[in-house]
């Protein structure tokens, strides 16, 4: 953990004009000590997020990705306002979106700025029908060709992953821009595509097509091969990889375990099961699933996890949120951050940083700001005269 030197981005000011396809970048930079100022403009105030269209409940995605930021509210003329110009002049990084100006635009106002724009398909390549749903980007990034049910079809990953992914790569582009600026003395820009961020995750499917002409298709619920897949147990499911390449020993260990504790598994000692190509057959896959799930029916995720790991088998529980909050490894490492959330009037528990730096400190990220909560302080600091309309969004 941190020895307490200053955070890496202490003194770096980031203007965050992103939409959902970039806001996670601001969270990551705030977690490195940058001052991240989220701008909300009057015209954007009527949020079009799906949840708020039918409910006034907390938008937890927005709350999570805006944690650790400040909020500046500007009126509808903000795009050419003095406040925004001055803010950009004072800043090191501007994070933008499809709706904002082209990558590099802000270099005219501030030749040393790092301008990173994050959008579904790359700036200027948006479809005409308006905001792009995460599921559409998962589809066009290729992820939906790989995950889903044979009958019901592809299912998008939880949590707007195309938006998280473009945010991660936006943060990477911003850091690269800051590093380059130190040697060149000049600003630079980057144009991040969430579709391309998803296309980082095609695994072996692209090379398989390129080299063999074979297209990968949905696997459905069934295991990939005997020993590798998701299996039901007493209180849920476990995920296991045993049998391929580096895990060949794990298969032997798995057989030893099952045979020792479950007489029905004795057939796994038959010679054919030692052959990986047999274990890839449907027959073997189905039979193994039957045996393993009967074995696991009176064993919990936690029991299977502990025993498998002690035998060198890569098995994990399919954790739910409660499992994670009670996970002894995460607890031992002090991973979760618990704090009192003023607006929610309750204690909340959130993940700690995704990586740990040994020398630089990493500030904890807590509440997202209320819209406009920092308007007055930021504008005064810039020497911009306040008008009533500028702070109309406060509170």
């Amino acid at each position, binding site marked *: 953990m941190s020895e307490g*030197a200053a955070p*890496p981005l202490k003194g770096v000011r980031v203007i965050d004009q992103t939409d959902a396809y970039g806001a996670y970048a601001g969270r990551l930079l705030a977690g490195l000590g940058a001052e991240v100022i989220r701008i909300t403009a009057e015209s954007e105030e009527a949020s*079009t997020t799906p949840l708020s*269209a*039918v409910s006034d409940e907390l938008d*937890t*995605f927005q709350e*999570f*990705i805006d944690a650790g930021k400040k909020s500046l509210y500007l009126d509808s003329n903000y795009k050419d306002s003095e406040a925004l110009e001055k803010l950009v002049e004072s800043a090191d990084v501007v994070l933008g979106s499809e709706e904002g100006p082209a*990558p590099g635009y802000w270099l005219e106002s501030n030749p040393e700025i790092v301008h990173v724009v994050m959008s579904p398909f790359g700036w200027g*390549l948006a*479809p005409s*029908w*308006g905001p792009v*749903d995460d599921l559409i980007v998962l*589809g*066009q990034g*290729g992820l939906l*060709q*790989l995950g889903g049910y044979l009958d*019901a079809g592809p*299912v998008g990953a*939880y949590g707007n992953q195309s938006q998280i*992914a473009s945010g*991660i790569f936006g943060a*990477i582009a911003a850091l690269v821009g*800051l*590093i*380059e600026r130190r040697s060149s003395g000049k600003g630079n820009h*980057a*144009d991040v595509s969430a*579709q*391309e961020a998803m*296309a980082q995750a*095609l695994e*072996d499917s*692209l090379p398989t*097509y*390129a*080299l063999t002409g074979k297209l990968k298709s949905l696997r459905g*619920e069934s295991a990939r091969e005997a020993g590798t897949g*998701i299996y039901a147990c007493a209180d849920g*499911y476990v*995920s296991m990889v045993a049998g391929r390449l580096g895990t060949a020993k794990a298969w032997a260990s798995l057989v030893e375990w099952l045979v020792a504790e479950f007489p029905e598994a004795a057939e796994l000692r038959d010679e054919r099961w030692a052959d990986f190509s047999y274990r890839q057959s449907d027959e073997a896959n189905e039979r193994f699933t039957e045996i393993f799930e009967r074995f696991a029916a009176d064993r919990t995720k936690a029991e299977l996890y502990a025993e498998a790991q002690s035998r060198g088998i*890569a098995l*994990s*529980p399919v*954790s739910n*949120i*409660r499992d*994670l909050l009670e996970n002894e490894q995460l607890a031992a*490492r002090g991973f979760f951050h618990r704090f009192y959330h003023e607006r929610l009037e309750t204690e*909340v*528990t*959130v993940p*700690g940083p*995704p*990586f740990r730096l*040994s*020398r630089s400190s990493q500030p904890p990220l807590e509440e997202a700001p209320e819209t406009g909560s920092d308007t007055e302080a930021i504008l005064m600091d810039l020497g911009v005269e306040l008008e009533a309309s500028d702070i109309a969004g406060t509170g």
Partner: protein
Amino acid sequence: MTSVTAPLKGFRILDFCWIGAGALVTKALAELGAEVIRIESRSHPDNLRLSPPFRPGTEGLEASGYFASRNPDKKSFALNMKEPEGRKIARQLIEKADAVTSNFRPGVMEKWGLSHEDIKAINPEIIYLVMPMQGSDGPHRSFIGFGSTIAALGGLVHLTGLPGRVPIGTGTHYPDHVPNPGHSLVGFLAAVYDRIDSREGQRVELSQLESTVNIIGPAFLEASIGHVPNAVGNYVRGVVPRGVYRTNDDMWVVVACADDNQWKALVAEASESDALRKMGALGVVERDSAIDEIEKAMDQWVGALRREEVLRRLDSAGVPSGPASTSADLLEDSRLRERGFWHTVEHPVIGEMPMFRLPFVRGPGSRRSMTRPPLLGEHTWEVASELLGMDEKRFEELTEAKVLY
């Protein structure tokens, strides 16, 4: 003519990463201009070099398409770390490096005398990236896993699937591809930036579990306010229909209507569907209540048409939609092509192969050209002679002794 940007030019990385997530970190750093020297050995080759796909008729350590896809722009230095002399050479290289990267289980680098403390003593400016599955301390530090089991352990699988069915996850080792290399790069580059002024390196540790838990962060806020997050398929409240529908040519299309206008446009376009037309006047709240009927009607309407027709009609009607692209679609995708996302390299064993680039275009300048993935040990002589000043005689001795091997 625009210039080509290489922001990490002159930055040298000694790369011990294996297989998945780690190789993608150094692939990105190489694309950004860093000199990435892979340390690998025939005595214990990277499993990825043995992994399919292979072009029909090719085999061996140089033929893996999987390995190739993650290792362009890198150099390969054959070094047998089991040999004391090999470990000595690694330490000599570290003196000339800016960073050391690895993704072994805790203990492996330490066993070789290459712990962060050991390396700091050789070169205090080194940035030292490690990517242990669950962190380098704690009771589960030695547990093993792969991307798919980490996705399960980290909560993503539980939350991805249909209610009451086996959780499906992404069907891949997703944490290996985006969150874990991505978060590693953020931490690594922050340390590089910090070093510019501090002149001090540091250790960057990515617990693959902790990184993966971050990408489901909102679920913890849900839980904190008393909602128990569970898998809900493709459902998002207020966006109805939202789903992936099978076409009559056995492909899939995505449709997501976020507002009443989009819904009306869909119903008008799908005029041959009585079921959809009957529900055309429903507002957002009513659509949410009628979701089962709407999804069924969508399945029927889309299911009667070819993919190209559905996509053409919905697009011209202004209904948010798109294909669930296959790998073939992706290679032809007009936006990806326009932005130069794919770069074809020519490999002596594999032949032509498309490589994917980082998901951003930097400017001013253009995307760099890529060099093909290295053959095992292809750069051993170059690195040994140029960086270590080794002469041919010594090089031959060490090769013969299976140290440079």
